[in-house]
């Protein structure tokens, strides 16, 4: 194999054991100042039975060992900072470092949630401003920033619907979820006390108004719709579908995972949505951090506003206050006021772009997705003919004939220096390959990615085993996930 493959050439990475294996008794990496008050005898203060002898097997390392440990581990990761990360519906875009810098502004980072409101006005203004801008982007009247992630926002949104319907006398029983939806949607509906009924998508990957009409009755509380949906297609009948739901007294919830396709171009509030969540760690560029933290802003129309989680901000004599007196509120969904540090980053992103810049980013995201689609369509089977928005979905139908599946192609992409697309999702596409480039990829990176996938398509024809046994140049070869699940070993133990 040539040393250089596409844009990459392998280089050595350091081996690194577990912290516990590196540990040796008596080593220390911490410093504490001398205690400036008398010592307290722990057994006398806490009771002998309440004092632990030691934390068994807790690591003991020097400072340089800790730094090297985590630095070495970091080199085993792929990241946006290294290249394109085209996971569909995940919106892995560049995370500007100014957002990290401002989130560390001392008086914001060290603010205690219970410090007096008079001494918290800056943080409260940040929250109020972000709520206002997001309401504008969503086309909604009110926004809560309390939910900690997208799924948490969904949960909040469905509880809002339940509270609203219950206030009218009947919370109803069923939530409709299209078969193309993210798994969080049905899981959320169940947590919020509903039964789930699945709606089949039509041959264009869209919801069919007739099918929706047939499914809606007085038991249906809501429809959870993702728009653009998970095949990257705008639900063209969305307004008509919303009318069908509303005519039966039901609500329309929108999963905003794909909001990156809409900002500044179309507003959910304008096409019939009652409540939506948006993932600030997707569209608004707060870093994914290997799986969080996120934030799940929820926007609502005025009829749902009385039910929003407490506390809400209100303005009183020129000051912002937290208002806990909201008798119709669903209550709290999280302690304090939300993932404030994430909110700072999202506001910084909006400020950097401005209204016009946000729209331009959306158009660039659509252009990048359409460009990737155009380049790959001769080589891979597009899942649906409908024009795509911010992501495009292919099927592995052509490669399957050679025994190569979407998961194999994904692993081979690793050898070419790219994180794969989203594999085998949405479930309605056979062998799905779901690609979302985002607006922040330069054309050269898009081309390198397309070249890699085109080269792999050729490899599938000429040497399918090469692809099926990939990856070949990563630190570890294909990881055995089946054994991991059969005999789960989820912590280190001595011996």
């Amino acid at each position, binding site marked *: 194999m040539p040393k250089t493959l596409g844009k990459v050439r392998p280089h050595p990475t350091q081996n690194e054991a577990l912290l516990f294996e590196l540990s040796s008794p008596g080593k220390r*990496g911490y410093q504490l100042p001398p205690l*400036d*008050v008398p010592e307290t005898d722990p057994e006398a*203060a806490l009771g002998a039975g309440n004092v632990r002898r030691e*934390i068994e097997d807790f*690591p003991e390392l020097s400072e340089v060992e*800790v*730094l090297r440990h985590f630095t070495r581990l*970091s080199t*085993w990761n*792929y990241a946006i900072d*290294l290249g394109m*990360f085209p996971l569909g519906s995940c919106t*892995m875009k560049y995370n500007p470092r*100014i957002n990290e810098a*401002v989130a560390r502004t001392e008086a914001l980072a060290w*603010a205690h949630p219970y410090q007096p409101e008079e*001494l918290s006005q800056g*943080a409260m203004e940040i929250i109020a401003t972000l709520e206002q801008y997001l309401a504008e982007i969503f086309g909604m009247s009110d926004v809560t920033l309390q939910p900690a992630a*997208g*799924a948490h926002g969904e949960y909040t949104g469905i509880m809002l619907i339940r509270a609203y319907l219950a206030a009218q006398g009947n919370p109803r029983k069923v939530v409709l979820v299209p078969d193309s939806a*993210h*798994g*969080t949607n049905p*899981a959320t509906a*169940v*947590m919020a*006390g509903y039964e789930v009924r699945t709606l089949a998508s039509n041959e264009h990957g869209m919801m069919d108004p007739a099918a929706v009409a047939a499914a809606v009755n007085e038991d249906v509380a809501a429809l959870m719709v993702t728009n653009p949906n998970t095949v990257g297609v705008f639900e*063209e009948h*969305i307004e008509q579908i919303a009318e069908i739901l509303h005519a039966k007294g039901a609500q329309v919830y929108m999963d905003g995972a794909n909001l990156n396709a809409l900002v*500044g171009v179309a507003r959910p509030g304008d096409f019939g949505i009652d409540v939506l969540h948006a993932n600030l760690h997707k569209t608004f560029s707060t870093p994914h*951090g*290997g*799986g*969080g*933290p996120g934030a799940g802003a929820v926007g609502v129309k005025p009829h749902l506003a009385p039910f929003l989680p407490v506390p809400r901000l209100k303005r009183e004599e020129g000051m912002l206050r937290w208002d806990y007196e909201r008798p119709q509120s*669903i209550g*709290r969904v999280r*302690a*304090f006021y939300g*993932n404030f*540090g994430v909110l*700072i980053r999202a506001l910084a992103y909006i*400020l*950097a772009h401005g209204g016009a810049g946000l729209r331009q980013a959306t158009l660039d995201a*659509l252009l*990048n997705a359409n*460009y990737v689609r*155009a380049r790959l369509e001769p080589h891979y089977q597009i899942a649906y003919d*409908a024009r795509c928005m911010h992501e495009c979905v292919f099927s592995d139908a052509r490669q399957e004939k050679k025994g190569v599946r979407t998961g194999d192609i994904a692993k081979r992409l*690793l050898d070419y220096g790219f994180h794969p697309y989203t594999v085998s999702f949405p479930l309605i596409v056979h062998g799905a390959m779901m690609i979302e480039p985002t607006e922040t990829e330069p054309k050269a990176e898009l081309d390198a990615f397309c070249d890699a996938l085109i080269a792999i398509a050729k490899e599938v024809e000429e040497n399918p085993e090469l692809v099926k046994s990939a990856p070949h140049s990563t630190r570890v070869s*294909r*990881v*055995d*996930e089946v*054994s991991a*699940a059969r005999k*789960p070993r989820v*912590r*280190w133990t001595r011996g």
Partner: protein
Amino acid sequence: MLAACGLSSLEDLYKHVPENALIREPLRIPPGMSEYEITAYFREKAAKMAHGYASFLGAGVYAHYRPVLCDVIVQRGEFLTSYTPYQAEYAQGTLQSIFEFQTMICQLTGMEVANASMYDGSTAVAEAAMMAYRITGRSRFLAASNLHPEYRQVLDTAAHNARMHVAGFPFDPETGRADLSALEQALDDDTACVILQSPNFFGIIEDVKAAAELAHSRGALLVAAFTEAVSLGLLEPPREADIAVGELQSFAISPSYGGPFAGVIATREKFIRQIPGRLAGETKDQDGNRAFCLTLSTREQHIRREKATSNICTNQALVALMATVFMSVYGKQGLRELALQNLAKAHYLAEGLDLRFSGRFFNECVVRPRRRSVEDALQVLLEKKILGGVALKRFYPELGDCLLVCATEMNRRADIDTLKEVLA
């Protein structure tokens, strides 16, 4: 690029979107700012915040020193800008660090398995209750009334929507500890779990073992909660509990006006299939090298959909990494020494003051100002640039004359002395 797509203008990109759905006028958001302007914007907001105050605020969010390495590591782009490690071969760094996190949480809490993190302590309590429901088939939860009041509110919201029931049981007005005879009375055969926080909201150590025995005697589980993770450096972990949940904010996570933090949930091996959220597990690659991957995902929403243990997807990975680095820096000795400093500062603070409760406490205690009302005391302290504690009236009307005061290794003796003068 447009030509390659067969398009002639950017507007063509959305011409299939129905006209009615398109935005009619530009977004009412001001024009974009430069880095310099954004920095100035947030500096201006920061100027409207408390700055330069000595703080004795705790109540679930604690001011602890943050070792420099914690920020150095989480700002590495390979951690900061990577995704959930579904592609194991390209995410071994994140996966091994999660495995180490899970291990250290087990070591700290005395449990056998821990997940990769929850949103925070409050949502972890609600998830633990739902887990107890799945294990026992029962739908009533008993929560100690000295559980963090906002955690209780989150639990109430979750239980109400799932059509389950939460009941409280009181604390002893003398000791500030949960009233275990009241717990015994309140337990019944519908009780899925008892939720007990230690140190509790008043900073007082609970008898987790006795509460666990009571719960188990009626077939219920014991969920042990904590908000002050540093206490686990010194205190016996809740070994008798069935589920341990808590908040790791104390481990290098900035108070940040309430988040992002990191919650934990840990349990017994036998309940592993009922735990919510992500788990990293050890395995091998095809060549026999040690490797890690996410595992038991058949519990999770992306596989199980409406039958999942929880809807949680994104958790608090980077924040959990920060806590992992913190635990590695302090290590076995350091965490104990840190806890001892906290204990000493808080007991020095409490000495000679009118403590509302007699129970043993770690680094927080409930104080009745002797010569002033709570409001006056806080005002006098503010003038001395001190945030004097949390007035308990908003959570417990019967404790309207009390302050919850916290001392950590960050509080200097001189400030503690000033606080004591005002509260004495």
